[in-house]
């Protein structure tokens, strides 16, 4: 079954170049491990939330807005889409996702068609 691992981070947090390099390297290692175990379905880093555009539909009427859906401190930073046999396996992958000192990973099962 597939699970989406959604990464939320605090964009205001200033990480050093060295920190970012370490996090990036950790992502590369995780990606490789996922591939090796046949668990990798997809994954991407997203550009910061100020590059977002939101299409809102309210009462059936669409409008465009500059910025992300929610103006929260934590913003969507990226995701992994993994294949895993059960929730604990998906959580185990989720725990390996690197980040700064404060961030979150949401684990959501994908609706099987």
């Amino acid at each position, binding site marked *: 079954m597939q699970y989406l691992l959604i990464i939320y981070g605090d964009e205001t947090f200033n990480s050093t170049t060295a920190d970012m390099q370490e996090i990036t390297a950790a992502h590369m290692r995780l990606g490789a491990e996922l591939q090796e175990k046949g668990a990798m379905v997809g994954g991407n880093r997203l550009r910061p939330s100020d590059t977002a555009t939101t299409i809102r539909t309210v009462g059936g009427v669409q409008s465009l807005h500059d910025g992300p859906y929610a103006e929260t401190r934590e913003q969507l930073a990226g995701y992994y889409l993994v294949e895993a*046999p*059960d*929730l604990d396996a998906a959580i*185990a992958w989720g725990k390996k996702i690197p980040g700064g000192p404060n961030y979150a990973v949401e*684990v959501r*099962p994908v609706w099987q068609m």
Partner: protein
Amino acid sequence: MQAERLLGETVRDAGDRIRAALAIRFRDLDMAEEAFAFASLRAVETWGRDGPPRDPAAWLYAVGRRRAFDLGRRAKVREAAVHDAPEPTPDPEAILVAAFEPIPDERLRLIFVCCHPALAPEARIALTLRTLCGLSVERLARAWLTTEAAMLQRLTRARRKIRDTRIRFEIPEPAAWGERLEAVLATLEIAYAQAYEDAGGASETADLAGETLRLSGLLCDLLPQEPEVLGLAAMIRLAESRRPARLDAGGAMVPLSEQDVALWDSRLIAEAAGLLRRAAALGRSGPYQLMAAIHAAHATRRETGATAWGDIATLYDYLLSVRPSPVAQVNRAVAVAEARGADAGLAALAAIEGPARLADWLPYQAARAGLCAKAGRAAEAADALRCALALGPAPAERLFLARRLGELSA
């Protein structure tokens, strides 16, 4: 009626085993309950008519299994149905009788499933009590002071999450063991804490306390080599031992140090002592053992007539080093005051890094009141009492605080 009484005994002795075996075998908590209920009804009919079976528990399990299998088959048939599919014919129970399986013990697996950290704590305990212990939705709703509809929704959501996120019906792997066991223990601790809140022990919450106590004991049977499991069971027993002494005739709270030790349940205290000895022999300390040890230290007032406050303060130091919490810090300050004087206690109280504003926190104000009174600072004590009363204490504690305020103002 004979059949009903036999059923009652069988369910009491083996109900949790049968329920767990059905739930795990069919990987479906809902269906297992239905199947068990069906088997129970059939038991009353059949045992009344034909006399009791040789092995009532095995009988219930066999009939439950058959029913669950049928329910599952019907569901698949319904899902796959293009044309009308015939209803499966039920086998006569005589055939089942010949095919008795021993009931596998899946209780631990079921506890781990129901207490998965992906589920909210209130959902975990409700699901465990419903699925393993067979408590009715109505009884659970009363214990949590909520409606049946709300409790049913809580249970349904939890079952749905287990199914939709695919939580495995297995004992956790070694790598996840610590975290998963911690979730089970925390579930029981939170459930007991809720029951403990109501010192009056209105029947619903006394019920909940009893069920949590029983569950903690079952865990000790299932995981005898886990010292924290033993520690939690000891802690719950010690806390529960004081229930008869916690309220006075007027319904006011009686603080621990003033309780009549003759009212404490000595059987529970002895059980707890045994559990703590077994835990200590396993040589791995932890927060639940430490909390139990603190309760046990209080309980020695029964033997010695005095409370070993110095020991208790030290135990709180250890506890805070592994499980920091504002409540433990408050309790430590009280112990320090008793052991080293009110000023030392007040200093410890002032140093607490508590939730947002200490002044708005009931345990802090209640403790401050006691320590100021002890230090002879009556005006400050009265002020703290007024603050505490304004923070909405439970009825029993309210009566106690109001009386203290009355005494100080007199």
